[in-house]
C-alpha cells in the first residue's frame, strides 16, 4: 500500500507549538512596546505570584481534558478549601502544617466526590462539575457569609509570598516548575500517559483493550481536586485572607490555557510543551495588560476571545490536513 505523508500526532502538534511560539513572541514584542516595565526580570518574577496558582491547576486539567472529560468546579474547590483553612486558623488556631494539610485534604476529598459521582454513578462530568462549582462555593458562602478571615499564622505566608533563599525566585514558581516536569514526564513517557491518550481518543476501544477506564478517570478528578487544594493553600497564603468569592471565574481561564496549548477539547491529543508555552503566553498577556491598567473584567473579554480562537485554530488546521490527504489520494 502506498503511503502518504506520515501524519502522526507528532506532526500536528509540532505545527501547533510553532504557531504558539510565534504568538508568544508577538505578545512579548507588543507588550514591551506598550510599557517599559515589561521586560524587567524582577517585575516578571514578581508577577508570577499572581499566576502560578492557576498554572498549577492547568496541569491536571490537561489530563482531564485529554481524557475527554472536563472539570468546571475547580474555582469552587479553591473557595471551599480556603474556607476550611480559614475556619481552622480562626477558630482552632491551627498552625501552618495543619493548615496545609486541611487545604490539601479538602481539595482531595472534593475531587474524590466528583470522581465517584462521575465514574461510579455515571453522570456526565459537565453536569456534575457545573453543579459542584456552585455547591462548593455556596457552602463557603453559607459558612462565611460576607465576612473574611484574615487571621493566619506568620509562617503561613511563606508559601504564597516567599522566595527561595536570598534570590527573588518565588517558592511557588519552583513548585510549579517541579510539577510541570513531573506532569510532562508522566504524560509522554509513562504508561499512564499512553492510557490517557487512548481513553480520550476512544474510551470503548481502550476498555476493550484491558484499560481500566473508570479508575483512571476517577484518579484524574481526585488529582485535580488535590492540586486545586494546593492552589488554594498558595492563594490564601499569598493574599493572607479568605473570602468566599476568591478565584472567581478562574475556570474560564484555566480551560482556555489548556485548549490554547493544543489540547483538543474532545480529548485525545495534547502536549506539555504546548501547554507550558500557553501558560507563559497568557501569563505575560495578563502582566502586560495589568501594566497598562486594563481592568479585570475587560481582561476577561480578551480571555473569552482567546478561548474561541484557541478552539478554531487547531480545528481548522486539522481540516486543512484532512483535505490535503484526500487530494493526494485522488492523484
Amino acid at each position, binding site marked *: *500500500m502506498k*503511503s*502518504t505523508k*506520515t*501524519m*502522526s*500526532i507528532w506532526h500536528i502538534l509540532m505545527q501547533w507549538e510553532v504557531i504558539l511560539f510565534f504568538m508568544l513572541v508577538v505578545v512579548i514584542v507588543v507588550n514591551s512596546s506598550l510599557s517599559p516595565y515589561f521586560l524587567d526580570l524582577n517585575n516578571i518574577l514578581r508577577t508570577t505570584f499572581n499566576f502560578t496558582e492557576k498554572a498549577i491547576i492547568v496541569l491536571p486539567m490537561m489530563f482531564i481534558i485529554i481524557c475527554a472529560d472536563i472539570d468546571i468546579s475547580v474555582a469552587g474547590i479553591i473557595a471551599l478549601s480556603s474556607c476550611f483553612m480559614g475556619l481552622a486558623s480562626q477558630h482552632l488556631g491551627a498552625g501552618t502544617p495543619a493548615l496545609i494539610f486541611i487545604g490539601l485534604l479538602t481539595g482531595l476529598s472534593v475531587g474524590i466526590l466528583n470522581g465517584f459521582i462521575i465514574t461510579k454513578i455515571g453522570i456526565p462530568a459537565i453536569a456534575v462539575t457545573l453543579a459542584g462549582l456552585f455547591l462548593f462555593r455556596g457552602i463557603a458562602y453559607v459558612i462565611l457569609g460576607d465576612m473574611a478571615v484574615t487571621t493566619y499564622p506568620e509562617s503561613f505566608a511563606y508559601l504564597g509570598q516567599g522566595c527561595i533563599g536570598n534570590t527573588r525566585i518565588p517558592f511557588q514558581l519552583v513548585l510549579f516548575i517541579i510539577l510541570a516536569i513531573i506532569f510532562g514526564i508522566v504524560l509522554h*513517557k*509513562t*504508561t*499512564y*500517559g*499512553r*492510557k490517557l*491518550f*487512548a481513553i480520550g*481518543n*476512544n474510551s*470503548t*476501544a*481502550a*476498555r*476493550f*483493550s*484491558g*484499560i*481500566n477506564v473508570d479508575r483512571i478517570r476517577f484518579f484524574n478528578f481526585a488529582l485535580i481536586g488535590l492540586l486545586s487544594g494546593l492552589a488554594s493553600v498558595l492563594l490564601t497564603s499569598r493574599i493572607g485572607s479568605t473570602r468566599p468569592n476568591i478565584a472567581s471565574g478562574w475556570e474560564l481561564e484555566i480551560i482556555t490555557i489548556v485548549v490554547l496549548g493544543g489540547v483538543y477539547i474532545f480529548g*485525545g*491529543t495534547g502536549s506539555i510543551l504546548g501547554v507550558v508555552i500557553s501558560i507563559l503566553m497568557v501569563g505575560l498577556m495578563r502582566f502586560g495588560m495589568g501594566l497598562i491598567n486594563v481592568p479585570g473584567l475587560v481582561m476577561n473579554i480578551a480571555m473569552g476571545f482567546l478561548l474561541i480562537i484557541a478552539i478554531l485554530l487547531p480545528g481548522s488546521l486539522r481540516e486543512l490536513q*484532512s483535505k490535503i*490527504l*484526500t487530494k493526494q*489520494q*485522488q492523484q
Partner: protein
Amino acid sequence: MEQCLVEVRGIKKYFPGIKALDGVDFKIRAGEVHALIGENGAGKSTLVKLLTGVYQPTDGKILLRGKEVGFASPHTSQRAGIAAIHQEVTVFPELTVIENVFMGHHIKKPMGLIDWGQMREKTGALLEKLEVDIDPDARVKNLSVAERHLVEIIKALSFDVDVVIMDEPTSALSLEEVKDLYQIIRQLKKEGKAVIFISHKLDEVYEIADYFTVLRDGKYIGEGLVKEAGVDKIVAMMVGRSLSQIFPKVDVEQGPTIFRVKNLSKTGLFKDITFELHEGEILGFFGLVGSGRSEVMQVIFGIDQLSEGEIFINGEKVLIRNPTEALDKGLSYIPEDRQQQGAILKMNIRENVTLPIVNELSHARKFLNKKGELKVTQEYGSRLDIKASSWEQLVETLSGGNQQKVVLAKWLATKPKILILDEPTKGIDVPTKAAVHKFMGELAKQRLGMIMISSELPEILGMSDNIVVMHEGCIAARFTREEASAEKIIKAATGHI
C-alpha cells in the same frame, strides 16, 4: 424497455484513505425490483448515501429520468422521489412513532403550524396497510429491534416516492417478518415504484428480485436478469475467486477441553448458554442480529458482568470481572466493530498493537519502552503481513483490511490460549479475508482454541469444526461440521426448530 428512472454513471467516492466507490454504473427502471449485490465493504451503502444526498460524489454523474441531477442534501433527493431505509438504525429514541415517521417532513397547516391530526392519520393508515401492530404514540426507545425496523420502513413509505431503497432490510427480521416484507415489496412493484434491494444473501435475491447488479471493492462488476444467471456465476462475480480459495479449512486434531461455559445468563440478554471449546478447535457461533452472541462473548471477556452461570478454563472455575483478568487467564476478544471497539484510529500502529500489553513491556511497569514495543509490533505486524509505510503510521490511514490486521495483531501479541473473534472478516476485501482465514488455520495448528462469531453462512460452514446457533438469547441448535447445512442453520437461527 421501461423508462430508466435513475441512472448512475462512472460514480466515484473517495474518503481520506479509502476509495469507497471507484467507477460504478447502475440503472433502475420503474416497476422493477433491483438487487444490489456485493460482499461487505463492496460499496453498496456508499452508493445508497450518494443516491439519497447524504454524500456528494467525488466524480461521475447521477441522472434522473435522463436528466443530470445533483443531490445536495437528503431533502433534494426526497423531493426527487427517492427514499431509503438505511442499514444503520436511524431512529429518534425519545420521540414517538409518529414523530419518527415525519421528522424532517412534518405536515404543516397554512400558518406553518404542525398538523398533528393529519400526521397521525397517515401513520395509522400506513401501519394498517402493512398490518403492523404498533402504537403510534409509543416512544421508539421502548420498541423491539424488529419493530424499530418496521418504523423505518414506514418512514420511507411516508414520502411520495418513486424509488425505495432498502439496505440489508432483513438482517433483524424473523422468517415471518421477512415474508411480510416481501409482500410489501411486491405491493410497491404493483404500484409502479422501483425498489433497490441491497443484500449479500443470495436466497433473498432469488426470492424477490427481478434484476441484479454486482459490486466488488467499490467497482462495478456485472449485471443481469436474476432468472437467467446461475448462483455460481453471481458468487464468482461477488467474490472474485472460487469458494475453496477463501475458506482454506485445514483439518486439525482437537485436543482436550480448554474452555467451558455452563448455564451462563445475563438478565434480558441471554439465558442458559452452555458449550465447550477444545484445543485446536474453531467453534462457530451463528445467529441473527440481536440473538445475543456478542453479548455472551463480552460477558465472558469481562466487559459486562454475568447474572448467573460458571466459566471454566482448563477445568478450573474462574471469575472474570474485567478484561485485564481475562487477559491474565489467556483469553482474548477481538471485537466486532473494529473502528469503535477494536482500534484507536488516531494512534499509530505500534501504539495500538501494544496497548493491552503496554504495562508488561514497560520499564518497571511505568515507563514506556519504545524499543520493546517496536520489536513486538514488528513481529506480529509482519506475521500478519500488515501493509504500511512504517509502524508509526496512524491506523486511520490504513485500509479496512489492514485495520483489521492491526486489531488481530494486537490480540495475538497478548499470546492468548483462547481467542474469540467477533465477525473477523466483516467489511474486508476478499484477499484479506482469505489471509485471515488462513491465519486462523495456522493458529489452530498451534493449539489455540477459537470461537468465531459470524453472520455469513459460507464462512460459518467453511471454517467451523462445530457450530452453535443462537436465537433470541438462547442456544437454538448445535451442529458438527458434518451435520451442518445452510438450511438447518437458517431454520434454527430464525426460531424454526
